[in-house]
């Protein structure tokens, strides 16, 4: 099988797989990074959202051969419990989630959005998150958490 060298969370990783294998499969199965989730495999739910070169992408539909020298970032690199990203702190403080399966993708999309839109309106946050689905009905808490994180970051 061909070998791919990809940059994930600041480190070079070597993966032996077929060129069409999705980045999501490589992250989860070859690199043991389980934060990004499989939800549909069709870029329709956003559960697999990660960053490539700081932009949110659907990892389920991105062949590993297309990653090239793009810098991949996953939720694992965003923050830790002792040093959380403002979004992670806001999601825990706001208890923004029920089952939580959608959260890794939503937090990654929201983090990219807040970087470019540091003081968004409620409607702008909701629209920015529309590529991601939440089935438990936590949308209101999630939007509140993103708005709270923006406020905190602006302090």
């Amino acid at each position, binding site marked *: 099988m061909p070998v791919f060298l990809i940059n994930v969370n600041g480190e070079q990783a070597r993966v032996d*797989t*077929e060129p*069409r*294998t*999705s980045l999501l*499969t490589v992250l*989860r*199965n070859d690199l043991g*990074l*389980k*934060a990004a*989730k*499989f*939800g*549909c*495999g*069709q870029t*329709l*739910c956003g*559960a697999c959202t990660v960053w490539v070169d700081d932009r949110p992408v659907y990892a389920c539909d991105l062949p590993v051969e297309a990653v090239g020298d793009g810098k991949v970032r*996953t*939720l*694992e690199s*965003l*923050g*830790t*419990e002792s040093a*959380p990203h403002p979004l*992670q702190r806001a*999601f*825990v403080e706001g*208890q923004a*989630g*029920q*089952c*939580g*399966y*959608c*959260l*890794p993708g939503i*937090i990654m999309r929201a983090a990219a959005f807040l970087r470019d839109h540091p003081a968004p309106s409620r*409607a702008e*946050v*909701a*629209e920015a*998150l*529309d590529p*991601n*689905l*939440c*089935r*438990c*009905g*936590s*949308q*209101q*808490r*999630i*939007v509140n958490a993103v708005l709270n994180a923006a406020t905190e970051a602006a302090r």
Partner: protein
Amino acid sequence: MTLSPSLAANPLISSWLTIRADGTVTLRVGKAELGQGIHTALAQIAVTELGLSPDQLVVAPLSTAASPDEGFTAGSLSTQVSGAAVRAVGAAARRLFIEAAARRAAVPASSLTVVDGAIRTPEGEIVGSYSSLAAEVNLDVDTAGAVPAGAVPLAERPARSDLTRIDLPDKVFGRPRFIQDMELPGMVHARVIRPPLLRATLADIPEERLAGLPPAAWMVRDGDFLAVLADREEVADADAARLRGSAKWEPADDLPEESRLTSWLRDQRSETSVLAAGERGRPAPPGTRVSASYSRGLIAHASIATSCALARFDGRLLEVWSHTQGIFPLRAAIADALGLDKSDVVVYHVEGAGCYGHNPADDVAFDAALLACRTGGRAVRVLWDRAAELGSGPLASAMTADVTAVLGPDGSVRDWTYDVWSNGYNGRPGYAGNPGLLANGYRRGGRALPPSVDPPLASGLGSGRNAVPAYTVGSPRVATHRLLSMPIRTSAIRSLGAHFNVFAIESFMDELAAASGVDPLAFRLARLDDERARAVLLAAADAAGWGQPPGAADTGLGLGYARYKNTGAYCAAAAEVEARESVRVRRLVLAVDVGQVVNRDGVRNQIEGGAIQAASWTLKEQVRFGPDGITSLSWETYPVLRFSETPQVDVVVIGRPGYPSLGAGECTAGPVAGAIANGLFAAIGVRARTLPLTDQNVLRAIGLDPPEAVIP
């Protein structure tokens, strides 16, 4: 207080609690964490009763090898049933430890208290602790024997301040926690190739396909059950896709025509259950007869994850890891289907995504169990794809109902009759004396899935859930007609029949109010005797600004009310609905009474989530099908509510300290549906009687169909 059924089945304290010499306490429960936060609520009850700090207690993951059997985690009963058991067990254990400390210190037990696990005198002297007494206190005793009758009613003990969700940090920081994240050493990845219909036979797999399987993948076939296995997941995926394209299936069932679904439901052979007998044979009372028919399509659970399971068989012991709602019933069903002894099967619960009822969790667990018997001891991981998740799992049945009543000259409502047609709402594993596992119907010698049935009255009914109105309407006659055939597989979804029945009843109440020329709130209040019902209705109306002019053109406010199962939580909803290009809900106000609140934010979270999901069902969701099977197999063809479509949700919780706690997860479904339909009527004067309120269904309600409410 009546004994919790969970405690009756598992009376020993030691079934629930292990207290170790290092002071840590393990709580074992039989109710599964489904994303609803139940383990947080039960932990809160336990630390309150035991007098522990939250970090002194862990909730053990469920397994059939160690957990108390509490049946299914369903029906909004976990806080009520498991909560009552944990409360009693915690109080009993606390008492035994206090008594042991009192004996040691030669002080009266009644003077001692427990704070953060330390047992103290009124002067603050520590005379023992859970850790120091763990070795001498025997917990292999009956809980009831340790709590004397006449003790302070358990529900009166004040709760500690709310715990935050114990599972959320893992999810927010991306740590593996879900079953989909789990790996076993040397495991193989499997994909199942399913027919497009519930009943079909595998006619042909072209021989060249068999020869063409790469050496990295192999196939397992048992009758009409077909799977591919591979060391690498992407290989299993690619091969499953190829095999799906070439496998030929013979359908064994005719599906109804989608456009005739409502009349099809009424035309099938069905079993009638009379839930309320009415006053048959009496002459119709004087007044005006009002009639209407309502309907709803099928709904999918549509979990955000696809179902997953792992299994391993060493030739004697079969281990299964599953996100099932019932580890014990699943174990029994798997053992039954595979001809194994129950004691040779262990089911471990691992969290999955929210399931909202009987989704494919059990089916995929059996897929894994079946395949694990064919891999020479290697562990198997099975993951369903999105199409199977939306099309091969159980669905919520389509429903249709006729309602009539007579409006008397004195304003009374009499001669209420309600007939509802539906497939059954329970096909869970083992429920109808059949393993009830999808793959078992395809195996050689397996048993096909029987038509799903309805739970009995004691469990809150199924298609008849909340079909009996809560209002004073004379002696209503209410009957369900459960279909005896099931070409499209149905089973339990959050609230079972209550979503549709409350939609129909609450719509009809508004139609009666309109026919009477009475305000819908006043019309309801005049027919509700229960003070707790009136309180939630008034609270929702008040918070929503009932009676004030609408804030914008083409918007209106609608109400809905029900007491879940007629015995559970009280819930009223007010919906502010806007009808321009499409129907949009701008705001939902929920007022609920769940008895004594265990975890205030947990209740609010469940109410918000239930309301938003119910809005999604009501506005958008409809399973589509054609002659070849289900066609709504992706998020494009089965759309759910997105962020920008989500209404503002406000929750009013009416606290009832000292009253039994009632589940909060399902009570919103019906009231929200009724409130939205009534809000649409208030906005533009259109009475939509078919859910979902898609553009197509609303347009039909506007013009293509004549109004069905006939006032002669």
